[in-house]
């Protein structure tokens, strides 16, 4: 796409991640922001991507079982008692 051509909504939704990652070149970033300023649908879309990221961040991680933790702790205790090298 030419540097001075305004972006369409269809193009915006493909650039959202690059925008949020800060990896858009300056010119494209300016076009992206100009589009956003004029387009409520794309502002909503960007906000939804942010909400998606925030919600994903609330998922819990898998934890070690107490048994597995005990095995590793024992291994670490053994390691402590071994001579270095």
């Amino acid at each position, binding site marked *: 796409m030419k540097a001075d051509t305004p972006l*369409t*909504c*269809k*193009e915006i*939704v*493909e650039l*959202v*991640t*690059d925008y949020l*990652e800060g*990896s858009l070149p300056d010119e494209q970033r300016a076009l992206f922001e100009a589009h956003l300023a004029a*387009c*409520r*649908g*794309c502002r*909503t*879309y960007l*906000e*939804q*991507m942010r*909400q*998606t*990221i925030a*919600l*994903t*961040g*609330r*998922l819990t*991680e*898998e*934890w*070690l079982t107490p048994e*597995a*933790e005990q*095995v*590793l*702790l024992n*291994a*670490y*205790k053994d*390691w*402590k008692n071994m001579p*270095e*090298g």
Partner: protein
Amino acid sequence: MGTGALAETEKDLLAALQRGDEAAFLSLVNQHHSAMLRVCRLFVNDLAAAEEVVQDTWLAALESLHRFEGRSSLKTWLYAILTNKAKTRGVRESRSLPFSALEAEPAVDPERFHPKGQAWAGHWAEKPRPWERVLESQALSNELLAHVQAAIENLPESQRTVISLRDIEGWTSAEVCNILDLSETNQRVLLHRARSKVRRALEVYFDAKAGRT
């Protein structure tokens, strides 16, 4: 990351580990367990086998802990051990990571935009509807989070791993690229596809909640 010296906090952590601080060791093990399993499962299909590989990784790390001088970050070091072990163990070794990166896959159904040749071509025909009101009414319900979880589980493996490491485990893009051996562009494409699909799944959910489908 990279080749620089360890950050102060990492130096302290390494010193604690090397002098036998059990609490420091357990906290490190727990901090990385979930991400290690995710990375491991790129190579090892079976969960029980992946858990064994993670376990083996810690044992191998202990064997060389005295010799580790902190020229790379602890994280780089640990995950290098992990990926080596996982690849050796993995039945799926021949697979390389960015296998789904190159097919075209639009972030949003093309039907949502005005078609080519018309006025407003490429602009929203059906705009996304804001989620604020539904989000307020049931912020962080278990049902909502289960829905996010399911959307992530349905992703192709490489996309699932990248979004999980970035958005659940909080890794930087540099860490993901380095540890998974991905180019920055591929990492971004995988993240983009993954986030776009999770957004779409949430949109379906929220629209249903708001009584419109």
